[in-house]
C-alpha cells in the first residue's frame, strides 16, 4: 500500500507527546477523511463532528495508543465506526443517503481512453451498469483502488469476514460490469 513516507515515525512522535506531530497528522488526513465521510452521508456538520471527536479521542488516548502499521487505515476505521454509529442513532432521515448516492462513481468522460471507447449510447449503458453495483461493492473498490489499501486493511475498515470476502466483492463487481457492458461489441 502506498503511504506517505514517515507516517509511522509521525505516529511514534505523536505517541511520545509531540503536538507538532499531532498537527501534521491532522493536516495530512483531514481532507482525505472528510472525503471518505461524504461518501456515506451528505451532512457535512455531522462528518465534521465525527472528525472532531475522532481527533479529540486520539489526543486524549495518546499514551494508550498502540503501534500501528498504517495510520491511514487506523483513522479510516475509527471514522467509519463513529459515522455509522451516529447515523444509526439519529432519526433524522435527511442524514441518510439513498444507497445509489453512497460511493457514487462518476465516469470521467474527459479521460481520453473513455472518450475514445464509448459512443453516447454506450455511455448510457455504462451508467446503468454502474448503478447495478451494490454500495458495499463500491466501497471496496473505493478503498482498494482509490485509496490504495491492501485487502487486509479493507477487511478491517469495513469489518468484513476475511480477505476472501473482500476479494469476492471486487470480483463480483468486475464481473457484473463486464457481463452488462464490456463484452458487448464496441
Amino acid at each position: 500500500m502506498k503511504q506517505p513516507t514517515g507516517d509511522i515515525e509521525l505516529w511514534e512522535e505523536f505517541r511520545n507527546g509531540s503536538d507538532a506531530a499531532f498537527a501534521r497528522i491532522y493536516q495530512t488526513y483531514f481532507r482525505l477523511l472528510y472525503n471518505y465521510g461524504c461518501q456515506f452521508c451528505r451532512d457535512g456538520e455531522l462528518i465534521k463532528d465525527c472528525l472532531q471527536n475522532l481527533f479529540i479521542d486520539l489526543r486524549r488516548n495518546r499514551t494508550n495508543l498502540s503501534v500501528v502499521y498504517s495510520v491511514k487505515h487506523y483513522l479510516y476505521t475509527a471514522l467509519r465506526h463513529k459515522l455509522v454509529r451516529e447515523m444509526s442513532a439519529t432519526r433524522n432521515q435527511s442524514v441518510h443517503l439513498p444507497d445509489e448516492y453512497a460511493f457514487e462513481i462518476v465516469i470521467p468522460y474527459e479521460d481520453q481512453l473513455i472518450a475514445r471507447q464509448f459512443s453516447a449510447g454506450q455511455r448510457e449503458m455504462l451508467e446503468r451498469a454502474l448503478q447495478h453495483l451494490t454500495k458495499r461493492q463500491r466501497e471496496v473498490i473505493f478503498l482498494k483502488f482509490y485509496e490504495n489499501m491492501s485487502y487486509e486493511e479493507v477487511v478491517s475498515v469495513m469489518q468484513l469476514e476475511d480477505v476472501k470476502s473482500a476479494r469476492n466483492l471486487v470480483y463480483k463487481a468486475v464481473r457484473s460490469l463486464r457481463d452488462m457492458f464490456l463484452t458487448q461489441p464496441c
Partner: protein
Amino acid sequence: MDDHLYSAEDFITDGHFQDWVQNPSPESDQYWKNWFREHPGHLKAAEEARLFLRMTRFRQYVPTVADEAGVWHRIGAAEAKMVSLNPWRTLWRVAAGVLLLLAAAGGWYFYQYAGPATVSTSYAQTRIVTLPDGSVVYLNANSHLKYNRSWPPPHDREVWLEGEAFFEVTKKRTAGGDVRFRVHAGALDVEVLGTRFDVNTRHQATRVVLTEGKVRLRSEDNQEMTIKPGELAHFHEKEGQFRKQSVDPEEYSAWRENRVIFNESTLEEVARGLEDYFGYQVSFADPALRSRTFQGTFPADNPEVWLNTLSRSFPLRVDEKNKKAVFGADPGAEQ
C-alpha cells in the same frame, strides 16, 4: 505475473498492473509492452481491466479551508475544557485532577496561544491562518509562515514568510497610534497598517501585489518604495533594485480560489508554476520555447490538467513518477 490464462479480474487486483494504469511511467510502459508482446492472449482481458480501473472514479468532496481550520480550533478548545468532563469521586481526586488538568491546559494554552507557530503547506495545498490580531493569511502551496502566537499591543505585529501568501490585515489602533503590521519576506520588509495584498518570495526575488490600502516596502539596504492598489512591486535580490508596474491584482490572488491564471505569460513562467505548486523539475531541451507565450487558467491542485493541456500545444515529455518535465522534442525519438 506468471503464465496461465488471466481474467480481467486478475489484472484488476494485481497491484503492479493497478499502479501502471493509475501512474504510468516510461519504465512501466515498457515493462507491460514487453509483457503483452510475450503474452498476446491476455491483451483483451487486460484492456478490460484497464478500462475498469480508469472508469471507477468517485465523486470527490473537498472541505473548505474554513472547515479544516474550524474543526482544528474545536479540537484545541476541547482540550482546555477537559476539566468539566472528567468524572471524579473524592475531593482529593478533584484537587489532583484539577491541578493536573490545569497544567495540561496551561501547556496547551501556551503552545496554542503564546509560543512561536509555524504553519506550512505542502505541494498542491493551501491553508487559511488566522493571526492573533484577527488578520487572515491565505498560505499558498509549498510555503511557510512563522509568527508569535501572542502579540501584546504596543509592539509591531510581525510575521516571516517563505513562499507565497495573501494577507488581509486588520487595522489596529492603541493609545500610541496605529499598530504596524510587518511581513519579513526574503530580502524585503513589507510594512502596512491595514490592507489586502499578495507576497511571493520565490526564486531569489520578492513580489508584492496590492489589492487594497497602502503598503511600504523596505529592502535590507534601506531602499524604500510605496505602492498603491493595482500595482506590483518586484525586488530582485541580485539586482538589489525595485521595479513597479500596473497589474490586475485578481490574477495574482486567484490561487486562493484554486485557480492559477496565466495571461500572456511565457512558458518559462508556466514552468516555474509547475515547480512552485507541485515540485516538478522542468527543463527546456529547446531553449526557443522558453519565451513562447501561453494563455490559460489551471487548477492549483492538479498537475495533470496542466501537463495535459500544455502537451497539446507544445512538445512536452513528462515523467510523472519522478516529477520531471522537458519542453522540446525528444532528440532520441525514433520517429
